[in-house]
């Protein structure tokens, strides 16, 4: 049984006096436990709307979401709470997605306490485990987000997600604001989390090389629809859709650029 199945999903934004904006138009896919799916496309193609709908921040206009065999819109209050816990999201702006007035310790304690993941006495030990999992030293615990680097903030975001022991993490452009070497570290972290914890990952990115490196499957999104889906290597090595080729050609890839210059 797939972990998550999305059937014919539509997301439409309506503003009075203006024509409706159809951000997602009939997207269907399924995701197995432990699998990673990359969603690529330009700004405005609907990939973030899709992500927001998956975590329940944005209602779908039509279509069904099935998680572990149960339709998400028919879940009980408690069931929906469990779903929100099982599906977590990491955002692009790491520093901005942490509370600037809370230290890393307070941020992580709060999540564990509010969701009753651990008895109060066991919280500090769990926080240490979480830091270890994302490769942060315990010295960051008393720092505020602005006092640590962007890469470290992104690790704290991952730790905050992992505190809830999710089944699926949706990462929306998690590395596009980071330096190349920091980017490599976060991508390696995502991969190791997927392998060690058996997490499913949905990675949203406009960088096809990033997706190629991390994901089992890829879906290319354009104007609210999936124009091409398949095994990541197949799609990116032999793209069938013209839009996928356009995206691929736009990737500034060192290897291919040097090849073109005859080096």
């Amino acid at each position, binding site marked *: 049984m797939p972990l998550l199945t999305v059937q014919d999903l539509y997301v439409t934004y309506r503003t009075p006096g203006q024509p409706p904006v159809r951000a997602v138009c009939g997207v269907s896919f399924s995701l197995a436990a432990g699998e990673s799916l990359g969603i690529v496309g330009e700004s405005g193609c609907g990939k973030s709307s899709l992500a927001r709908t998956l975590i329940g921040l944005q209602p779908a206009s039509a279509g069904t979401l099935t998680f572990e065999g149960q339709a998400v819109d028919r879940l009980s209050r408690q069931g929906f709470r469990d779903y929100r816990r099982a599906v977590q999201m990491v955002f692009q702006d790491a520093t901005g997605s942490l509370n600037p007035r809370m230290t890393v310790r307070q941020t992580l304690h709060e999540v564990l306490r509010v969701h009753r993941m651990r008895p109060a006495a066991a919280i500090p030990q769990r926080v240490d485990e979480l830091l270890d999992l994302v490769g942060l030293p315990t010295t960051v615990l008393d720092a505020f987000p602005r006092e640590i680097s962007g890469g470290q903030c992104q690790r704290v975001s991952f730790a905050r997600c992992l505190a809830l022991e999710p089944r699926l993490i949706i990462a929306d452009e998690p590395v596009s604001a980071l330096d190349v070497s920091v980017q*490599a570290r976060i991508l390696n972290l995502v991969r190791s989390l997927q392998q060690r914890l058996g997490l499913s990952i949905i990675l949203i990115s*406009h960088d096809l090389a990033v997706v190629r490196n991390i994901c089992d499957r890829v879906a290319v999104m354009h104007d609210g629809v999936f124009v091409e889906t398949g095994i990541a290597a197949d799609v990116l090595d032999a793209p069938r859709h013209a839009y996928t080729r356009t995206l691929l050609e736009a990737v500034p890839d*060192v290897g291919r650029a040097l090849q073109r210059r005859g080096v």
Partner: protein
Amino acid sequence: MSPPLLQVDRLSVTFRRDGMLTTPVRDVSLTVQAGERVAVVGESGCGKSLTALSLTRLSPTDRARLQGRVLFDGTDTLTLSPDALTRIRGRGIAYVFQDPSASLNPVMRVHDQIAECLPDLPCAERREACVELLTRTGLPDPSRAARAFPCELSGGQQQRVMLAMALAARPKLLVADEPTTALDVTTQRQVLDLIDTLADADGMAVLLITHNLGLVAGRMTRVYVMYAGQVVESGAVTDVLSNPRHPYTRGLLAAVPMLDAPRNAPLQDIPGTVPSPDAWPVGCAFAPRCVQADARCHTEQPPEIDSADSHRSRCWHTQPCHS
């Protein structure tokens, strides 16, 4: 060969902060020939942007002390009077920055902002010149864009407006500081293609500052790799990226995810972080993060070593050229 358009000789930038002297840019030398495409790459905090700003003494505070020489078209911009400098800014060296929405005035219409860059034209002709400049940058419906406020345009469109402003005075050198980092890949490509086309048409030189080695590989002629305020490797793009001599350049290259790399091969990261300018390491600045570092690397600064024709690297482990 004719003298270079821009010749930076041992440029250093020093600030006094809390009674301490810090030198975020140290002895940077670089040249740009007329019409040439040159890139400066490195991680955040390596001094790339400060170097670029210092070319026209635009450093963020007036307390900065600039040493060395910046010869632009034969005159040293570091010793010019403020008036003479004003004539070089914009007309000689123009800038495009990373975040167009922060560079544009949010309460002025686009044509009013571009008109400010055209003081030599009579007022009546400025409006038309604006639209013409916007047309050159490939904006759809340029006359509508000219009347728009910046917030009504997308990031890519705003960057085109920035370009139109930079090109208004027909500069000889365009300094583009991470011009496409905030844009997605297809828009990025369009903006860079546009810079290329416009530079070709006007014979303008481009100094591109970026951390994206893919952009450098695809379109630039020469590259300077900066680390901890110094140039650590320089040379022709094809030499430096296909045969990097400095471990830092190799580290940067290995960290980039590549389309043709085998899947699930972990990316190589560079351990540690860029040191703070308040405490540059004593020896080679990269030694604390370098796998090859030995005792000498930690105590003595390596000199710049020529390894092949005009391919230079600042590392004790570079094999010097024996020609």
